């Protein structure tokens, strides 16, 4: 019996096991999935918790519910991978051998990376990237009397790079609806030079921040946070004071990757950007947030990668050459509040551009422009996620590789074609 082991039963791991159980004959292949818990959160839902639209319970289901029959599911902490002996060492002392390994252990926030951040943790400093953090922030926002809310990105890359922008837009919209916008200043602090990494989207999103009177502080790298004086301090000496700090702390891969001695400086696994195989080990593959790839850390990316990774894993098993098919495709809805959202679609080479999606001209979804349809798309996506995406079903009309048709680069756009 040959053995495939998948580390992580989040978005990437679950999609992969659903694909692969169908493709690998049960009499030849045993599949084991290992995760530290059995809680699958619909992570795009975290954004909605602080504003009272969702609770933790609304977006939580057991991981086991989404795994197919004929798969062993082990819930325990992984100590490390031992690639030399093709074994995964579990913290309970067991060893699990593999012929092929898929790493899908994701990324997590690490507030301890920034001196001072934990001093005011969940008192005046909050995150919304964990279910507990998002709920604590919901309680805080309910009683927030007014003052300065700083929405802060500590360091890139982060999961879902648009989430902090969405948070700022949502904050603005909610405060307006309750007639309290004039009591609160919203400041957006980022280590980037603009609202987003890519020029066209950065300009569109930057203009929206300005329109909503959200002040942007750019090129800001926090050296430390002075929780007692309530201010973030940049390496260059600049300071941004806050009454409430909503931060996206440094994101890193699993500590298990570091214990295995396999990670980069962010504990991400060096991965071939096109084949999704580990750069170092022939029988190890990776997808989703756990990789070091220069594309978004987002569920849509894990989904697109899964279609390519299935084929490449099967090719590797058959001794065939891998196909360099992954193009960095990412697709996400940017929630604006007030029933509107922006949709962006991009890859390694093509930044988010205006146009129509998924079909040229008729769309129906407009790209890089706020619309009600995109907002409904975002809400509907929760259903798509649980019922189609995790189960490895194809999402109609949205291929794994990005489609240029329907996109148009503005004539006066910054950047330029690559």
């Amino acid at each position, binding site marked *: 019996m040959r053995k495939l082991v998948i580390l992580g039963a989040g978005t990437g791991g679950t999609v992969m096991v659903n694909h692969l159980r169908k493709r690998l004959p049960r009499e030849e292949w045993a599949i084991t999935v290992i995760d530290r818990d059995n809680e699958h959160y619909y992570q795009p839902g975290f954004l909605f918790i602080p504003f009272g639209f969702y609770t933790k319970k609304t977006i939580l289901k057991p991981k086991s519910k989404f795994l197919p029959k004929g798969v062993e599911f082990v819930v325990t902490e992984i100590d490390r991978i031992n690639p030399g002996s093709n074994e995964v060492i579990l913290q309970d002392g067991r060893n699990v051998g593999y012929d092929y390994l898929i790493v899908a252990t994701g990324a997590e926030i690490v507030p301890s990376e920034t001196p001072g951040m934990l001093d005011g943790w969940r008192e005046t400093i909050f995150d919304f990237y964990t279910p507990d953090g998002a709920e604590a922030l919901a309680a805080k926002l309910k009683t927030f009397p007014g003052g300065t809310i700083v929405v802060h990105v500590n*360091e890139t*890359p982060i999961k879902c790079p648009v989430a902090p922008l969405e948070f700022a837009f949502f904050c603005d919209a909610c405060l307006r609806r309750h007639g309290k916008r004039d009591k609160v200043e919203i400041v957006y602090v980022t280590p980037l030079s603009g609202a987003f990494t890519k020029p066209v989207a950065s300009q569109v999103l930057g203009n929206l921040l300005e329109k909503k009177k959200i002040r942007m502080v750019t090129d800001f*790298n926090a050296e430390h946070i002075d929780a007692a004086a309530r201010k973030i301090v940049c*390496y260059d000496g600049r300071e941004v004071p806050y009454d409430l700090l909503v931060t996206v702390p440094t994101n890193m891969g699993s500590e298990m990757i570091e214990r295995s001695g396999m990670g980069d400086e962010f504990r991400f696994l060096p991965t071939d950007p096109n084949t999704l195989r580990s750069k170092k080990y022939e029988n190890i593959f990776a997808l989703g947030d756990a990789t070091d790839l*220069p594309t978004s850390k987002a569920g849509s990316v894990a989904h697109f990668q899964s279609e390519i990774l299935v084929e490449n894993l099967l090719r590797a098993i058959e001794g065939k050459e891998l196909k360099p098919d992954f193009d960095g495709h990412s697709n996400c809805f940017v929630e604006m509040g007030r029933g509107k959202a922006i949709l962006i679609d991009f890859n390694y080479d093509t930044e988010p551009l205006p146009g129509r999606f998924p079909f040229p001209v008729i769309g129906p979804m407009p790209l890089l422009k706020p619309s009600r349809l995109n907002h409904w798309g975002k809400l509907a996506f929760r259903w798509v996620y649980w019922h189609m995406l995790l189960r490895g079903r194809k999402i109609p009309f949205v291929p794994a590789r990005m489609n240029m048709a329907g996109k148009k680069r503005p004539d006066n756009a910054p950047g330029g074609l690559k």
Partner: protein
Amino acid sequence: MPQKNYGATTVDVDAEGYLTDFSQWTREIASAVAREEGIAELGPAHWKVVEFMQKEFKENGQAPSIRRLNKSGVITTKELYELFPGGPVKKAAKIAGLKKPEGCV
């Protein structure tokens, strides 16, 4: 494609002045770019950073993050800000003749 003159040398640059062809880079151009960026003279500590960035770029196809510079033991982030005030990685990349670091999306 825009071009820029440094002394007698003409180099290809992008809209923001980053070199698009590393083979055109010289130490003289680096010093000239540094002056434009407000760094009067490149000392040994500057060069150490510039050379490390070029090595990393050659190996990985992208400029290293601040975290990587810090972890590699080349320079602390605080010192990096003192050497290249403002956006240190962007400035150092420009001086090193590399394309603008994009950060990840």
